[in-house]
């Protein structure tokens, strides 16, 4: 558990570094980083919005819990991988990127957690939020990530 926490912190520190400093929009604290170990996901309330916070391989991703399809609670869905089958897989089914794909519980649309993009209609995407860890606390900003 503490290992996970460390990883999460390390990962989010790296993320924090890559994000712009100072004058960032308001961040909302949503819980200690230890509550978001790799492979976990939780739905948190940020003002009036529900936001899903996912730890994908040590990187935190926050997505508004509204599916662009029919506005279902997309972040309630399971996280899986991407099924692929094309010339590069020799037209064999291949399961890849396990843990990086969110499946909406309503109609099964799949979204790439790291980009928010839908795997089927690629122009459909989830709204991403900025997320970082400050002094061991996960902070989410509703103004985009």
């Amino acid at each position: 558990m503490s290992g996970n926490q460390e990883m999460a912190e390390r990962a989010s520190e790296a993320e924090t570094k890559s994000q712009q400093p100072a004058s960032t929009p308001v961040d909302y604290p949503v819980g200690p980083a230890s509550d978001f170990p790799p492979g976990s996901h939780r739905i948190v309330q940020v003002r009036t919005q529900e936001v899903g916070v996912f730890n994908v391989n040590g990187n935190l991703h926050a997505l508004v819990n509204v599916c662009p399809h029919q506005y279902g609670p997309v972040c309630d869905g399971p996280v899986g991988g991407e099924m692929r089958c094309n010339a590069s897989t020799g037209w064999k089914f291949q399961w890849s990127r396990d843990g990086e794909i969110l499946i909406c519980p309503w109609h099964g649309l799949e979204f790439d957690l790291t980009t928010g993009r839908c795997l089927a209609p690629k122009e459909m995407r989830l709204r991403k939020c900025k997320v970082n860890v400050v002094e061991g606390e996960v902070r989410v900003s509703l103004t985009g990530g």
Partner: protein
Amino acid sequence: MPVQSNRVASDGMVVVDCDIHVNDLPEFLAPHCEMPWRKSLEILGAAPRRYLDIPGYAPSFGLHPPIPGGHSARSVNTPQAMRDELDALGIDYGILLPDHLLLFATLPNIEYATALSHAYNRWLVAQWIQAGSGLYGAIMACPQNPEDSAKEIERYAGTPGICSVYLPTAGVDPLWGARRYDPILAAAEAADLPVILHSVTVTSPVFPAQINQFENHFGRQVIGHAFSMMANLVSIMHTGVPARYPKLKIVFTEAGVSWVPCMMWRMDRYHQEYRRTVPFLEERPSEYMRRQMWFATQPLDEPVNPKHLVETMEHYGGADRTLFASDWPHHDFDHPRGLAKLPLTQEQRRKIMGENALGLFKLPMPNRLSKREIHSA
């Protein structure tokens, strides 16, 4: 200004008809058929038959009595007759498909079906394809024997006048798209020959031809072709044919076009939900349709307001994906004039009436038009 009665809507534009039918009686094919099946065709040639209904050759499983008062039963027996009739209709080029062998896929005997497909293709090339006649041929695929059929496509690829591959669709089991047919599709793609799906009304125990509950031919005719095209389109998509054969061009005939948006939208919708089961479809099904598929007009959907048909076409790509077909000489053929009432721009009309087909089947601009261009230049 004098009006040429047969060219009202299409005057000055090339008219290519991607679905006309040759009368392929067993006695015509017999001399071209390998032994021992030539013997079968000779017997069939002497057997009594009904129009487009010959047991063991064209088993339509017709359940209906002849319509009181009769019904049209035209057939065309010679290339000259076909040429004359197309001239009268104002059609420059026609792509020849069979009459009886529209029911070919229902024949269960593999050796017989293979020999019959060879005989049809030999006969077609020997008797019907003549340079300058404007009659082009589709090599008949044999779904009963995909490996042999692939060789047959290779054999005829490059034969002058052969511009496509006919996929017998009525009663085909399993449907086109099943992986056992991959050799046929691979050969067609390699030969750069578009494939043409053509069905016909048939009552058969295979999906979706179990239409025996319909009391009359009205019901079976309305259902038959359209359900066949819908089922085959979905089958072709569900095994990823357009993704696996990205250069394959696929033409759907004789079901009108109004069914197309319905299936397209349903596939797009369920592609979202079941993408993991069809991961080879890396784009929406409609994207593949807009890139690799064409839809023939006949039998023209005839809404009271013709504008509604044009709007319906627009959903799947409109004039770019639509081909004129007459289905001459069959009972529900469409005269090119039938499309005159559609509110299309001249450019859209040119594409649908012939220019799309010229590009798709790689046909030359007919002399009457290239000459005209020279005159006006």
